[in-house]
């Protein structure tokens, strides 16, 4: 890492309305030069929208964006020369060959013919596409198209690389390859901004992570800081022996329970004070004639941070009691008027 205190990306008050729908809501953050910065959030959180605004494709409704020393939108063209973009879906020209795609990219980034040819060869080699250099992309598999998309983003040697969901939908081998590539690029000084809905990706790759939910940044920190921030918060996991899960009433009314997630007969209760909650759970089950199957306390992982903030993801299904009990606020209308 070569973070000498300079910012690569500076975002203030960034906001985007699609018509009346608020997709990104007054977002602030900085990304340092040489950093791997992750934007973690569930689907529809506003990650892609944010990336599209920073990379000048989409016009923000409000807010300011700085890329190194360039102010958007005034200095968009200069800023674009610093950025390489790998969008969520591979967008390559299927009528052109792999090499044709790279050369065309070189041309619109104003590289000299000599540089274009040299760099295209180099990238075809790095991405294992040399044999397919003269094959039309039409015939490429999904993984190959992805690799070519990344290669095209690197054609002009960008200082900042944007990767929107780089790992999702890839096989294990390709995923490992992309992760290694991200680390290697970063070692060579490239700032990385990536989005993901997968906690593992953020945990493994990123120096710092912003958790975004419903268009707002919930928290920003290193993966360790984020885990630490909820150390005081504990989880009590309870499961019941019952023939019918739906008969079990909500446990969220128990004193000290901040938030409840349930999946069938398994409950996760988030609390600051497990010692208060555990006896109450036992009382509660006695009162309602339920028999306990298990009762555990769990420490925090990055997943817990994510879960706590967004109220969703793997394993546990939220919202069974309807939205008023779940932490998921209704989108849109409620937060429109600013």
């Amino acid at each position, binding site marked *: 890492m070569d973070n000498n205190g300079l910012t690569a990306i500076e975002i203030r008050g960034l906001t985007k309305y*699609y018509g009346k729908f608020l997709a990104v809501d007054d977002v602030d953050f900085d990304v340092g030069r040489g950093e791997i910065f992750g934007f973690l959030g569930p689907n529809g959180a506003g990650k892609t*929208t944010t990336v*599209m605004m920073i*990379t*000048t*494709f*989409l*016009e923000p409704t409000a807010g300011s964006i700085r890329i190194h020393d360039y102010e958007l939108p005034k200095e968009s*063209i*200069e800023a*674009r*020369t610093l*950025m390489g*973009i790998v*969008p969520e*879906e591979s*967008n*390559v*020209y*299927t*009528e*052109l060959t792999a090499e*044709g795609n790279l050369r*065309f*990219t070189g*041309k*619109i*980034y*104003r590289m000299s013919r000599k540089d274009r040819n040299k760099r295209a060869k180099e990238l075809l080699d790095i991405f294992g596409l040399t044999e397919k250099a003269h094959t039309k992309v039409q015939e490429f598999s999904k993984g190959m198209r992805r690799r070519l998309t990344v290669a*095209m983003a690197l054609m002009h040697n960008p200082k900042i690389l944007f990767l929107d969901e780089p790992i999702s939908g890839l096989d294990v081998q390709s995923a490992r390859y992309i992760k290694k590539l991200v680390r290697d690029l970063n070692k060579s000084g490239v700032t990385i901004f990536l989005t993901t809905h997968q906690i593992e990706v953020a945990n493994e790759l990123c120096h710092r992570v912003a958790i975004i939910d419903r268009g707002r940044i919930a928290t920003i920190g290193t993966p360790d800081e984020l885990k630490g921030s909820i150390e005081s918060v504990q989880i009590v996991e309870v499961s019941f022996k019952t023939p019918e899960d739906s008969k079990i009433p909500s446990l969220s009314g128990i004193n000290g329970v901040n938030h409840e997630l349930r999946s069938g007969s398994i409950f996760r209760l988030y609390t600051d004070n497990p010692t208060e909650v555990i006896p109450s759970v036992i009382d509660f089950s006695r009162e309602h004639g339920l028999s306990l199957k298990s009762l555990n306390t769990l420490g925090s992982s990055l997943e817990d941070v994510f879960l706590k903030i967004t109220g969703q993801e793997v394993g546990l299904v939220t919202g069974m009691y309807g939205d008023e009990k779940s932490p998921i606020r209704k989108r849109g209308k409620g937060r429109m008027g600013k």
Partner: protein
Amino acid sequence: MKKVSIWSRTIGALGQAWAIAVKDLRTYYFNPPMVMFGLIMPVLLFFSFSVRRGTELSPQLGIINLSSMILFFTASTAGPVILILERRTRTMDRLMTAPLSMSCLLFGKAMVGLVFAVSVDLIPIIIGITIFKVRIQNPPLLAGAVILSAMSFSALGVWFGSFPVRSVGNVMMPSTLLRWPLLFVSGIFIPLSNLPKWVRVVSYISPLTYAHDAIKHAVTGSGSQSLILDMMILPFFLVLFLLLAIRLYRRVRKLGY
């Protein structure tokens, strides 16, 4: 940062526009909608409306009509086909985040229609000269008129293609409905001097009127209105259509597609 002169910046921008045009010509030349709306349609229209009147149509007038119709349809088809396909495959996002201005990008797109239309238009002109022995009074003027017309029609197509829709059909149908009537008011099927007064007024807002008349000047040595007017109005349309297209792209950038 190195200070770059306006001159070298312009050369650079033209290079980028040209790169886009070359890529598009390679990629979309034989695209089915392009062939259908850009090649087959003008030829069919020509034979069903112009030639039917048989004996009246001299080879000379045939060349003038057919070549201006081909220019009109071929050049204005490239824009919508290419722009909408690029938006649908999201390759347009690449161009819109590359270091070039929107005007440079759209100028590149307009050059596609130009090259496409001019190359197709050579066919009737060459057939006319070799087989029907048509004498061109002013060949350099013909070249100039063909290129200027193709440029402004191509820009018209770029404007059509800049409406924020996802399917080629959504733009092709309305734009075809808009283009057909122009054939009747622009001096092609009915000479300008035979038009009723109010239609003659409408003909002044059709770029096809000026293109057809300029080509007529070049082929026969005389036209229905001032040649200078023709040659001045055509570039005006080019600029107008490109400006309208750039305005629509501001909307695209707000909507996100």
